[in-house]
């Protein structure tokens, strides 16, 4: 097993709102290995963005609060750092890219200023050196005429170009971990592919580990090494890309895969998952997916399933894995390769 750069244990995050307490993340654990790409997949509102922002400790408090858990990074628990120490981590060791490149850049500052301020914050170098580095970064992410472009404002760039700038901005201090929250959702399909290519290329060149937050399984299939599927604030299944795509075990994962258009399965219908996720004001203590699950059993509404480890990487939270379920449901037993 490779080294873990980042390891999250039993993370709980709550938001106090107008209507009451929302438990957005309810005991999430995962790890990130050096140089790999981990995708966290799920519907909107499943807690994937909150999880990623918790790692950066960027949850607005109030109303958000990390109520439990640990986030180990390079031997220290990020949740135990002071805000000032955490600032030293943000941008330098762990960087983040947000969904919409149109709004992620400050409209009144040149992109040069915005790229350079990160380096100037974390490294003790002159403005001139910083500008050289910024040019290097822009070249790395494939922006032509980087020297001239540094002096321009965000509105003078297209959406795809802006996302490249955002990536350059995030990588300028050579962080160990890059968290990308829906980095391609706001882009055109053709641009999406280019940006994903860029991620792979950048990872190859810099060895950065990437956490990719997305709801788009197409994106995941292209770049992820491992995949964690989140539902209602919990990771319900986790495995390598092969395992998740070819032998999904959780009915939710299976549902997600069936609801994605596939070119390789001609004639197969798209099957949406009926219903909507549970309300996180009062999440069910048992399996949150039971209400929408085709294979739900009595037990699913009573007790949360225990974690079943299938391979070294693959594990799932589902009662169908219980031997008793297999005997009950023998006609529709799932094949496990």
């Amino acid at each position: 097993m490779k080294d873990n750069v980042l390891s999250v244990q039993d993370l709980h995050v709550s938001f106090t709102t107008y209507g009451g307490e929302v438990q957005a993340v309810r005991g999430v654990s995962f790890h990130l290995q050096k140089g790999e790409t981990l995708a966290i997949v799920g519907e909107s509102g499943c807690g994937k963005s909150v999880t990623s922002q918790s790692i950066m400790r960027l949850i607005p408090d109030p109303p958000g609060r990390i109520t439990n858990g640990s986030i180990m990074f390079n031997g220290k628990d990020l949740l135990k750092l002071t805000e000032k120490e955490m600032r030293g981590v943000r941008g330098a060791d762990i960087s983040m890219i947000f969904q919409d490149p149109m709004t992620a850049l400050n409209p009144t500052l040149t992109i040069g200023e915005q790229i350079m301020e990160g380096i100037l914050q974390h490294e003790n170098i002159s403005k001139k050196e910083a500008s050289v580095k910024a040019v290097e970064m822009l070249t790395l992410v494939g922006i032509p005429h980087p020297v001239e472009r540094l002096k321009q404002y965000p509105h003078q760039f297209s959406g795809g170009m802006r996302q490249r700038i955002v990536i350059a901005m995030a990588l300028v201090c050579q962080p160990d971990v890059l968290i990308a929250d829906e980095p391609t959702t706001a882009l055109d399909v053709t641009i999406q592919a280019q940006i994903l290519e860029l991620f792979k290329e950048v990872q190859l060149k810099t060895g950065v580990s990437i956490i990719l937050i997305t709801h788009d399984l197409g994106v995941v299939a292209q770049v992820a090494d491992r995949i964690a599927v989140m539902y209602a604030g919990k990771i319900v299944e986790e495995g390598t890309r092969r395992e998740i795509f070819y032998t999904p075990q959780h009915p939710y994962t299976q549902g997600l895969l069936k609801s994605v258009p596939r070119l390789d399965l001609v004639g197969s219908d798209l099957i949406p998952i009926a219903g909507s996720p549970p309300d996180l004001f009062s999440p069910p203590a048992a399996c949150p997916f039971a209400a929408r699950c085709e294979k739900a059993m009595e037990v699913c509404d009573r007790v949360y399933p225990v974690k079943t480890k299938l391979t070294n990487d693959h594990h799932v939270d589902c009662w169908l894995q219980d031997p008793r379920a297999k005997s009950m449901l023998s006609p529709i037993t799932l094949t496990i390769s």
Partner: protein
Amino acid sequence: MGTYLFKRILAMVITLWLIVTLTFFLMHAIPGSPFNEERNTSEMVQKNLEAHYHLDEPLLVQYALYLKSLVTLDFGPSITQPSQTVNDLLGRGFPISFELGMITLFIAVLSGILLGILAALKHNRMIDYMAMTFAVLGISIPNFVMATMLIQQVAVNWEILPVATWTSWKHMILPTLALATGPMAIIARLTRSSMLEVLTQDYIRTARAKGLSPVKIVVKHALRNALLPVVTVLGTLAAGILTGTFVIEQIFAIPGMGKYFVESINQRDYPVIMGTTVFYSAFLIVMLFLVDLAYGFLDPRIKLHKKEVK
């Protein structure tokens, strides 16, 4: 850029022409005004009026000549003080009013912005509530009430500061304070809401994700964007302060243009009312225009828009 500027100047000129024309014809429409047939003014005044307004000519010729005199910045004679012209009054009164207005604007903008930022950064805490209650009070208390309250308390009861005239910095404190409260409250509220909105923007989150300190984020990323809407109201605020000088100068016996203006209203000195209105309107319209230009320089997106227009 050129097209935009041209359009903007054209609108400005039309607005000016509108107010000039409005003033001219309204003044000529008042029964019993010196411009009318049945006038009862002294001989000297009559001479002055005829010399300036060419009352013996047909109305349209009068109007044309009037426009011409305005272009040369000649605002005409006074009735009540026959030896004076509106230009004389402006020359004496306007510098004082301008000083009062500018000090007020400066105080209002500075303290309003500070208060607004403070409230936004301490959103939903005690300081925020206090600042905003203070601001609503500031908007709700008319400046003439504020002025009399200040006179009553500070000048009469405590005897700390002088009440009237405009001779030393001590005399300036109460009038500027009375005049600045309203605009300051408006700026504070606007800054707060605009700051709160900016702080939720994605680029602020990006800046936080870079590891910048809160102070740097506020100063470098939030402030400039938050203050853009504040710039847009400066023109309107200047107008409010200017009209505010009418009552403030009256109450504090400050010999500014506002005081002359109010006197001219009370004495129905129509040429002065006319001249002053035109002068003040021109002043404010030009202010609005300058504010627009300044906005263009502060927001890089506007420049592009203008380029696209071209």
